């Protein structure tokens, strides 16, 4: 079970409270976790990754285990603690704007 935390606006949009829990086949990667997230919550398509290119949107960051994984290859394995559910994969809205 993979745990994912979302920023407030995306929790509201997806109508979830707290963390999201996802089943991901195989060793989880950023891509596979986000694919599973969008499969479970289609309303999030286009809000974290662009439609078409599937590129991370500029003001979205991915954190886990105290590290910024935003610029890591999306097919790299996520840390063991994320894979075991000990730590969440965090989708974060960047500090910007007003």
């Amino acid at each position, binding site marked *: 079970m993979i745990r994912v935390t979302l920023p407030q606006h995306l929790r509201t*949009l997806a109508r979830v409270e707290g963390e999201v829990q996802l089943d991901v086949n195989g060793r989880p990667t950023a891509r596979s976790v986000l694919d599973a997230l969008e499969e479970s919550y289609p309303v999030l*398509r*286009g809000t*974290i990754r662009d*439609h078409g290119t599937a590129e991370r*949107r500029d*003001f*979205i960051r991915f954190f886990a285990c105290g590290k910024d994984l935003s610029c890591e290859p999306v097919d790299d394995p996520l840390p063991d603690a994320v894979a075991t559910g000990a730590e969440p994969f965090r989708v974060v*809205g960047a500090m*910007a704007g007003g």
Partner: protein
Amino acid sequence: MSRVRLLVGTRKGAFVLTADGTRDDWDVRGPFFTGWEIYHVNGSPADPDRIYASQTSGWFGQVVQRSDDGGETWEPVGNEFAYEGETGTHQWYDGTQHPWEFARVWHFEPSHTDPDTVYAGAEDAALFKSTDGGQTWTELAGLRTHTTGEQWQPGAGGLCLHTILIHPEDPDRITVAISAAGTFRTDDGGETWQPINKGLRSRELPDEEREVGHCVHRLALNASRPDTLFMQKHWHVMRSDDAGDSWQKVSGNLPSDFGFPIAVHANEPETVYVVPIKSDSEHVPPDGKLRVYRSRTGGNEWEALTNGLPQEHCYVNILRDAMAVDSLDPCGIYFGTTGGQVYGSADAGDTWTPIVRDLPAVLSVEAQVLP
């Protein structure tokens, strides 16, 4: 008695304001989608309870919300706006070519007859259409791929398609306006487009009368005379009596002919409203006085409407999609400001009252009349 519903988009959410036909007492509901920029909220003329809202964010991109119960509840629908085929380029601020990139929807224009058919005007400038209530969107690519496309350039607000006018008797005739490209018309439902900017002069262009490149801020028409169009350009108030084939300046005695919104009285096709702003470099009302100007002669002769509007220390702006009229008699007219006020007049502009004073900056106002 009929009711009036105002659909208000702001920098931090949407609001729905309702009143009976006297338009004296208003019920204010919202914010909906708090914290998101709501560029536009617009209802279907065929089913006023069908409403579309453009919900956008620099962080999370574009969301389209739909209500089927007059704004009581909302459901997200399709948010994939993909340019058809080769994306191509337009002119960038530094004169180089820049690829089209979708940013947001500025304006929704539902069909006059089918609640499931709606057009979306996008930044970077393109026109999309949905025939399934917003679930899926298809670009009418003949506009963006027009041979002049590489000469279009973004204004300060981006390269945005902000105005969509559907001819009330011929739905295949659609007129759109783009900042900063100009006005375009299709007569075949969006397959082919022609620039209709003859008569516009823009001193910001090296050739003032160029075919495209004009910063048209807003178009408006009265449905009983759909070939007469009124335009607030960056500078200049214009009119056309031949569906945009040619334009004449009707700024007349306005204190400034720079501004953003323009509206036409719903029952008097020669009564037009604008809100003059001091200049393109100072987006504030002249002399700190918020004045709507009304012409009852189709332009050129304008009178200031001030009763109930602040006449000192007022430095708000009124954005291009933030003024609307209702179709009651007497005609109601409404506008929202960047200071968060929504003003209304139930007597065609003679007197004004603030409906709400402290909303986030208002981006758009639409008016619906309900049975």
